[in-house]
């Protein structure tokens, strides 16, 4: 085991623990004052990353000192290299997929972004579905048209489901246009922009827009 690695690991861990403590203290002020100054996160997150670096450094150094041979040896040569590449690529993909949500333009499609019980998930929404037949637009009873589970997904503004639903309605006889209008409020009670999706069955053109 390398004493130098251990020493460095201890120093980094101490610095990380210090940053975490400072961050936690600053966040405690935020909580008691009920203000979101967010400075605490700027100390806490680097502190956690420092602890991670220290842990990996120390763990790798300690692993080198293990005397008991493992009953399954690690792969060697090219197999080890390819497996390491595969694991690394797998992790990179997992880490990148949720960024699609954070850097994308659709705040509603939270799939694969690990946003369980997010604030978006608990928006309260009122969905209206409309169809144009013989030149007149009239409301559609979603309950009698589509499975109730799809109604929930439409209410959550899933773009793929909204588009597929509108295209599916165009396949019904006599329908020349269809529209979905979803009005939502956030958990704090603030209205968010309406989501509207329309289709013109003549050319299958879909348009979206947020209007209020």
């Amino acid at each position: 085991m390398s004493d130098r690695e251990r020493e460095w690991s201890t120093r980094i861990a101490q610095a990380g623990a210090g940053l975490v403590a400072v961050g936690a203290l600053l966040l405690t002020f935020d909580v008691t004052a009920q203000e979101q100054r967010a400075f605490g996160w700027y100390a806490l997150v680097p502190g956690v990353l420092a602890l991670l670096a220290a842990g990996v450094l120390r763990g790798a150094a300690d692993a080198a000192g293990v005397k008991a041979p493992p009953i399954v040896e690690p792969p060697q040569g090219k197999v080890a290299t390819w497996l390491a590449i595969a694991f690394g690529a797998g992790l990179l993909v997992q880490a990148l997929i949720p960024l699609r949500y954070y850097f994308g333009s659709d705040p509603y499609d939270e799939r694969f972004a690990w946003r369980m019980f997010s604030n978006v998930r608990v928006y309260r929404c009122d969905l209206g579905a409309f169809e144009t037949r013989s030149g007149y637009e009239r409301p559609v009873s979603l309950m009698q048209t589509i499975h109730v589970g799809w109604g929930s997904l439409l209410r959550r503004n899933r773009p793929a489901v909204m588009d597929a639903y509108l295209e599916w309605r165009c396949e019904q006889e006599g329908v020349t246009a269809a529209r979905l209008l979803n009005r939502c409020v956030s958990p704090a009670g603030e209205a968010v922009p309406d989501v509207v999706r329309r289709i013109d069955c003549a050319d299958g053109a879909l348009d979206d827009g947020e209007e209020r």
Partner: protein
Amino acid sequence: MSALSRTLYVPVAAVRPYLALKCTLILLAFDVWIARLYKGHGHGAGGFNVAHFGLLDAVQPSISAPLYVGVIVLTGALCLTIAIASRPPRALIVLAFLLHTWSWAMSMLDSYQHHYLLSIVLLALAFFPRLTAEEALLPPSAPVKRDAPGDEGKRKRRKKKQAEKKKEAPEGSALLRPFPLVSAGGYAFLAASVAVVYAYTALSKTDPEWLAGAALKSVLHLQENGMPAPGRDDPISFFRELAASFGLAGETFWWFMGHSVVGVQLVCALGYLLAPFRDVTTALWMHALGWLALFTALSFHLGAEYMGLEIGWFSYYMIGYALIFFLPGRWLVIAARALVPLLGASLGPEVIAARILAGLVLLAAGFGAELPVVGWLGVAILALTPIRLIAKAAWTREAASRETQTHHVALGAAGIGAAVLVAGGYIADLPGAPAAAIAGAVLLGAGVVYLLVAKGQARAIHGYGVGAAIAGLALIASMALSETRWDFYRNYGGNHRRLGEWAIAYHAYQKAVRYAPDDDAADSRQRRVDEMRANIERDGPRRP
């Protein structure tokens, strides 16, 4: 060895990957049958479906309830079979990964994120070391090697060698002897994958409405003042009172809750990233972090269950992983040695005594405190000792038998397994289940032919035969002891009633009546059946 290799292939207690593999597969089998199968009632209803990926929409067959149920039944049966079989091949775990992934990806009606997580877990499991219970649990100084029947000379030499090693082995309880280590890149990959989930969950909770507690109030169905609506139970009364004892009340309490969730996720993420080093590190702070991560993960997931924030069986998986990744290896080995029947090796009478004691305590506590699951767990633990004795007797007899007899027994086990699985598919009485069970039996048959012809391994067939038989019985038990069929058929009937498919709704409601719980609503259920029959007589099989 490079620093990267030391990190990726860091030695871990063999019991960790062993338990992670077995527990995931067993839990997943019952999860898909009990908690997910009934949700197939909506698949394909009205002819509308959207898959999670556009490519799937283009290539997959028309989605329907029977197809979904079939995939679910087959996924569960495969998971249980390979969990029971000794040293299953990676290809079967990859097959389970593909089936499970298709089961949720085929339709956006299934949007639970933990199903996606389980796909990642199954993929990681395919890279786990292939270990038998004996290899994972017995002390490294006394490895159990399996001899081909009739190889007397080799066996005698090995016995002599083992007897010599036994003399050198340290004294003390067999339960407490050292545990073997393995290099498991897949295990480190799984730990890092779980850490990614916790890290992004932390990020998602830094939204201002979460930090201020507004989103949490909404998730818990509380009023804007944070109190439950009149006449409703307070789902967080315990936490509210606990926080109040520290002076946290009113809005400050909600701000604390909102912020603490982020902290909890960060601790869990860090804990999982460093978990692979749990068995090799000598740093006290890393051991302390392991305990902190365990406490944090358990309190978070148990707390979520307590507050009614269930996401399917997600909490059960995460509680299991927290125990497997963060508990000291020695603790896990002791528990596993006490609970897992080992073939061809005895850990002494104290293990049997401990097992019986644990079984009795769980049995008494479970049925005494009206927690039947705990009580049945106690019964299962009590049954382990006789099962182990029978297995050992069978092992001894089998080892002494001739090669041809082994073939007969192996083929018999596979045949019985296939028959029980197919019977389970029919007894389940769900659309798509018989076809799935037949497909499972065909898969088993193909595996038997492959093992016999290509590899000449008759002995390996036993595990798959026994596994398939247990999967068939477990499917029957899952359907009989849960309300899966009732939930499936009443919703299936309701969907088709709303869509005007009277004939399908009529047959579904008839089945729902058969599997309904014993309560006071029998008359209203029968009225639904009569209503659908009247509709058919008036309109034909569907609404005009």
